[in-house]
């Protein structure tokens, strides 16, 4: 247990530390130098070293880096608010569509014959067994300007349509990749709804919509919240999908973070700050949905 906690907490702490620190140049006595000063000194040193052909292992700079506490990174995140909001918006749209597709599907599966249920679940999970990159790549080839879909339309003399590198393509990618995470928790609470419970409601005068609103939705509420969380969180922080299907035109928050760590904008401190803000935001969202869920009390487990 203790190890589990350490295992989970340590990387988070690291990110927090990164987010609230930055490295600044100092002299050897620990006095802070401003950027220009430091650059000047370094340039002079460099020239001196070169001139006297000092061996590499004997070159000692008068300028060292020092890590200091700062909230600058966090404040800087503000600059990326539009990207953040755009990510949240797209993730919300994808989550909503997943819910709209997944809910009836999960219900249908839960009412099927036992054997068909197992088969449908296999089908739902099938794409998950394929590598994430590969299945997104597959969509790339489908959506491309001379991809399969456009070629198909071409047969009828329509198109080609601009499909790849659009917001729609990114959302499609999110839906395709994360739909199973919506269906599975929904299915698992829905199988627990007895047919006779539904019949009892019908018996008391409930038509289709009342059965849905008064019985099925309340009883599947825990599945709805865990489904939403399970789709929204990976969608909001994805970067591969937007890179492959969005073509870089639609920068998401995930791309931004990625760029700070592995990209050319190298700045792990800023990257950490963005992730931290994102995490706080997600935690907020989750506590809201959970509070919403608790209102309906009882019900099944959170997946």
């Amino acid at each position, binding site marked *: 247990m203790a190890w589990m906690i350490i295992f989970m907490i340590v990387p988070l702490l690291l990110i927090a530390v990164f987010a609230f620190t930055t490295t600044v140049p100092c002299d050897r006595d620990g006095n802070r130098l401003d950027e220009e000063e430091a650059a000047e000194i370094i340039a002079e040193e460099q020239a001196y070293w070169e001139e006297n052909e000092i061996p590499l292992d004997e070159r000692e700079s008068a300028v060292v880096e020092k890590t200091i506490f700062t909230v600058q990174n966090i404040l800087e995140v503000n600059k990326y608010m539009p990207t953040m909001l755009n990510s949240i918006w797209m993730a919300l749209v994808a989550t909503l569509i997943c819910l709209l597709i997944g809910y009836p599907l999960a219900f249908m599966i839960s009412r099927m014959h036992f054997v068909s249920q197992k088969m449908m679940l296999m089908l739902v999970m099938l794409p998950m067994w394929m590598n994430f990159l590969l299945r997104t790549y597959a969509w790339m080839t489908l959506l491309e300007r001379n991809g399969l879909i456009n070629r198909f339309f071409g047969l009828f003399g329509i198109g080609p349509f601009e499909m790849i590198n659009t917001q729609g393509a990114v959302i499609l990618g999110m839906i395709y990749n994360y739909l199973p995470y919506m269906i599975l928790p929904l299915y698992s609470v829905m199988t627990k709804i*007895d047919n*006779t*419970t539904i*019949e*009892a*409601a*019908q*018996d*008391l*005068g*409930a*038509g289709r919509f*009342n059965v849905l609103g*008064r*019985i099925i939705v*309340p*009883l599947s509420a825990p599945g709805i919240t865990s489904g939403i969380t399970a789709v929204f969180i990976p969608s909001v922080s994805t970067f591969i999908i937007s890179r492959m299907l969005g073509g870089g035109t639609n920068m998401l928050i995930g791309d931004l973070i990625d760029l700070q760590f592995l990209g050319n904008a190298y700045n792990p401190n800023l990257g950490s700050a963005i992730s931290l803000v994102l995490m706080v935001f997600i935690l907020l969202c989750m506590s809201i949905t959970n509070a919403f869920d608790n209102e*309906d*009390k*009882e*019900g099944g487990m959170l997946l």
Partner: protein
Amino acid sequence: MDKNKIIELKGISKAFNGEQVLKGIDLDIHDKEFVTFLGPSGCGKTTTLRIIGGFVTPDSGDVLFNGKRVNQVPPYKRSVNTVFQKYALFPHLNVYENVAFGLRLKKMKETEIAAKVAEMLDLVNLRGYEKRSVTLLSGGQQQRVAIARALCNEPKVLLLDEPLGALDLQLRKEMQIELKKIQQRLEITFIYVTHDQEEALTMSDTVVVMNGGEIQQIGTPQDIYNEPINAFVAKFIGESNILPGIMHEDYKVEFAGDNFVCVDKGFRHLEPVDVVIRPEDITICPPSDKVINGLVESVIFKGVHYEIMVRAYSDLWKIHSTKAPEVGSVVGIDFTPEDIHIMRKMESSQDYAALEHMNGEEAGTIG
């Protein structure tokens, strides 16, 4: 009793996956009647009830409510309510909201709902349980909630599918009396499903005995018990000695190697029949030429009486008596002509199969 037909079933048949579950059910149910479907497991009782409730559509035949055909009317538009075999309460709602469910759908005023729910909870003795979660109630209490919930809509007909099946014997007896009281107080029709013949006999105005998807006999509990129409009914309602016999002429039957005077007539000459004699109608007497004599094989104490098995030739007789003869002694088996019930042989072999099956199970059903 008011003899208005409130529900009519006409030639109802139903098959599931090619298996014929109901084979032409004809039945009239009257206003304010307590009707019980009685039969062994799998005979189609629940299916018949579900057809009345609208959850199953018959393959052929008609369901009429007050003379109107309702085959295609969905459950939520039917004026009947159901108490389900496993209660089927709404787990996310408390007792109050469970009972109020039907009223809320009718968009009733909150004050009216509160009054009605209170009335129903009074009726089933659950006052003060309004706020409880239904998942935390005992079986008996859940059953009461289910009854209150179904009665809240003031149905003309209440369908009950083995409502007491999951309760222990003591509670079951209490609930039987309560249910009967409720039915009489509200003056509505109850259609009640059970496979417990004692329950059927004590509660019903009319008993419908079913087997293999067919109605065997419809009648008052007294009719069914005293005048079973065939060996199946005789065997199912109470215990019986069933012996093969031959009808020689009116009022004269041969069985157990002898000729007897009986009170039945209207059979063909030498028609093979089933002779049914209830164990409690037989008296044990000293052996003599005038009666059947047999050897006492076993004596079992059953509380109110002894169950005595007597072998006479190849027949094994079951006798109920308050006095116990000694095992191994020879006794006489005596009965009057009125105690002999003559029944036509059953047609289908399936009926016999069902009977054979029951012989194994039935030992504990009646005391």
